[in-house]
């Protein structure tokens, strides 16, 4: 039987970056094939070429033995290639069915479409009501729409680019069941993820890219997460250095009965939340996405301004009525979950993106004039200190790979040495080496006396990083307890329980 997909000498050059350098490998029918590599290694670029979003500069793609040119995504779908992106393209106000109908190349009567959708869901155990509005769905459920959309075309190859970064452990398990079933039926799967234990659990083969080149192929079942991470980076992996039994200082960030009204259309508001973070302490906020994390971050950062000055205090000063700029002056920096269009402007250069949040704390403005030299110097420092793969401060944010943009954003805030830092998903889509570096930078910042709040769905991250932990559920926050007092099962259950209660519909 010919290989399902065979790449030979695939090369893609961007201005100043060789994103793929003569990459050759094959995917067999029914194989679950992992694509691993550091941030900026060229994984997304490679699959975008397979799916026809970009064209390779050189090299050949063979599909079931035949050489093909994949002109565009529509051609890819015609061949039988499906792709699920990390960022979904769904209309919140429309139903599941309407969203799927909009994405189809050929329009099918909605009755027929609905019966086909139900059939696919039944076959693969994907529970989803076609008539629910997308806005009411959790991230995992939204991803199911994208998967159903791809499966309706009976793909022979399904590409998934970091599908699990936003899923709960339970949702990940459900996804794996579907993928295994698909593979058993002969559909090949090309799977990109930075979560190496998932790769071990799911994949048959792993192809490892570094700097655009294929450096190794291995069987994940025979490797450890650490050995795969080291293959990706090419050197040993550092552990987080965290002093045991650290003493915390005075309460720094005190939040007292913070509530946000109903904010955006579909966000869950924060409901009467109170907590204290002391100097040197890292507080973790665990929870399934969509339980008020965004509102909590916005309320702390100052994007949402409440009506009670004392609801949020730093060192005893009420900042509840201040906007983001004033709060930054008071020492509070924040990183929202969404990097594109929220934490950074894709069309702007990295230098200009530094002006967005660092202009006051780093003296980039004099009498209304922007000191672009200062912005450039600072950006260069962020790039160097956080090993951001970018040509320089003049690169646009949009040209960075997902993980590198995240590293830049984290660096931009951490190097401002805020006395309070609130971050959401600090290592979202970041490779193992860079995640360790970001964790270390956060631990060091806390050691220097800052109070840090980490909002995340990644339990491993929270357990490794935080001193205390609280769980957010439908906008309410549980009491914070030392992280050592929680067992893995307990946090998982808390979050899982939360999820279970959300799914009653």
């Amino acid at each position, binding site marked *: 039987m010919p290989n399902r997909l065979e790449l030979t000498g695939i090369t893609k050059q961007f201005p100043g970056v060789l994103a793929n350098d003569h990459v050759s490998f094959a995917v067999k029918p029914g194989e679950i094939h992992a694509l691993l590599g550091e941030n900026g290694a060229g994984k997304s670029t490679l699959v975008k070429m397979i799916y026809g979003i970009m064209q390779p500069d050189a090299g050949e793609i063979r599909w079931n033995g035949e050489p093909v040119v994949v002109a565009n995504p529509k051609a890819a779908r015609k061949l039988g290639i499906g792709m699920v992106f990390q960022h979904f393209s769904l209309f919140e106000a429309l139903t599941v069915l309407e969203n799927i*109908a909009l994405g189809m190349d050929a329009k099918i009567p909605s009755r027929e479409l609905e019966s086909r959708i139900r059939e696919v869901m039944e076959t693969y155990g994907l529970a989803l009501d076609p008539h629910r509005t997308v806005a009411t769905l959790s991230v995992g459920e939204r991803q199911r729409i994208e998967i159903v959309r791809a499966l309706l075309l009976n793909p022979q190859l399904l590409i998934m680019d970091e599908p699990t970064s936003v899923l709960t452990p339970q949702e990940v398990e459900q996804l794996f069941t579907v993928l295994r079933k698909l593979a058993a039926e002969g559909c090949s799967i090309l799977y990109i993820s930075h979560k190496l234990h998932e790769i071990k659990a799911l994949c048959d083969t792993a192809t490892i890219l570094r700097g655009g080149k294929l450096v190794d192929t291995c069987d994940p079942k025979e490797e450890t997460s650490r050995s795969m991470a080291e293959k990706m980076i090419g050197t040993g992996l550092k552990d987080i250095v965290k002093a045991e039994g650290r003493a915390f200082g005075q309460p720094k960030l005190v939040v007292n009965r913070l509530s946000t009204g109903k904010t955006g259309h579909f966000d869950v508001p924060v409901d009467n939340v109170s907590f204290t973070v002391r100097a040197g302490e890292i507080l973790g906020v665990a929870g399934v996405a969509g339980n008020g994390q965004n509102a909590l971050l916005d309320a702390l950062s100052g994007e949402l301004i409440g009506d009670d000055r004392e609801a949020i205090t730093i060192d005893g000063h009420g900042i509840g009525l201040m906007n983001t700029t004033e709060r930054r002056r008071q020492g509070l920096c924040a990183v929202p979950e969404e990097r594109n269009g929220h*934490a950074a402007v894709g069309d702007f250069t990295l230098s200009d993106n530094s*002006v*967005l949040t660092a202009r006051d704390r780093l003296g980039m403005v004099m009498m209304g004039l922007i000191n672009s030299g200062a912005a450039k110097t600072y950006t260069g420092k962020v790039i160097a200190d956080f090993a951001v793969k970018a040509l320089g401060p003049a690169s646009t944010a949009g040209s960075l790979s997902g993980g590198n943009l995240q590293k830049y954003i984290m660096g931009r805030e951490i190097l401002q040495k805020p006395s309070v830092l609130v971050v959401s998903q600090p290592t979202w889509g970041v490779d193992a080496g860079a995640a360790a570096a970001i964790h270390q930078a956060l631990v060091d910042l806390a050691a220097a006396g800052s109070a840090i709040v980490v909002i995340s769905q990644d339990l491993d991250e929270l357990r490794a990083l935080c001193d205390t932990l609280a769980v957010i559920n439908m906008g309410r926050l549980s009491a914070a307890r030392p992280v050592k007092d929680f067992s893995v099962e307990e946090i998982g259950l808390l979050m899982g329980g939360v999820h279970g209660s959300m799914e009653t519909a």
Partner: protein
Amino acid sequence: MMRYRLEKRPEPSKLMLYGTPVAAVVLTMILGCLLFSAIGYNGLRAVQEIFLTPLTNPYKWQDLGIKAAPLIIIGTGLSVAYRANVWNIGAEGQYIIGALAATGVALMTWGMSGWWILPLMAIAGMAAGMAYASVPAFLKTRLNVNEILTSLMLTYASVQLIYYLIRGPWKDPMGIGFPQSRLFSEAARLPNIIPGTIVHLGVPIAVIVALIAWFVMSKTVFGYRMRVVGAAPHAARYGGFSETKTIWLAMLVSGGLAGLAGMLEVAGPFQRMVPGFPTNYGFTAIIVAFLGRLNPLGVIVAGVVLAITFVGGQVAQTTIGLPDEATGIFQAMMLFLLLAGDILVRYRIRRVSPEASVGAA
């Protein structure tokens, strides 16, 4: 039935982005030629008179200057507002109100002399333009009323105000019944800067305004605010730029500059308020802003291009009897082609297979 749909291009090319304005102008000439040939004029001649004569005939250069000046000033203000996605469509109204305020000062100081009269008129013009633009700003920020509609509707109100004032309180006592204000006294008229021509002080002012705006947009926090609010409103809020303040600033700047243009126009070429004062500069400046890629330096060039069509339109009227409306047709065609070109640069057209339309919901 065939169906088409727009698909976003992954990477719109820089070259195309700057090429579209040029392409739009060239296409306008070609289509204009065909159109006027089809309805029985000498199309080639029409295009030649409208686009080339103003450039080749040195007598027309001063006309170009004084027509371009208000277009550049208003277009600069609009380019600032449009950058921030604040759609002030009522610059014509703000321009008229600015001119009326300046007229008011000129009439109150009638017969007086002093260097301070012109600056006072300029301040009054700008303040009035700003005040008029704050109505849509207020309605937008307080009640979330679309600024496109309110600013546009206020334009019609401003035209009525001219008619009222020059028929009533401001009517020229010596005007033998003509509805117009009296001629401004010497101190309220813009000085000519090139003796023997009609080129007035407003022309260099326009260039200076655009240069300042370019500097402000690229080097200051104000400009940064406008750019970031337009590019990513969510990121702007994160960066500490409130949407309300931005809407106000955008409206005040564009309204104030439109008011200034109105003052310069009434104190320069007109030297009195007449019923024919509104000449759609405020609307044409919308084309100028877009043709200049919302960049003040581009606006200078675009202002001259549109001035060419105004001057050329008048030439073509006298030489080949082209109707008055021809200029408007050419200008509208240019905007249409520019916007269409912009869409094609950012998106591409995809044909959806024919069976697609069957049973579509």
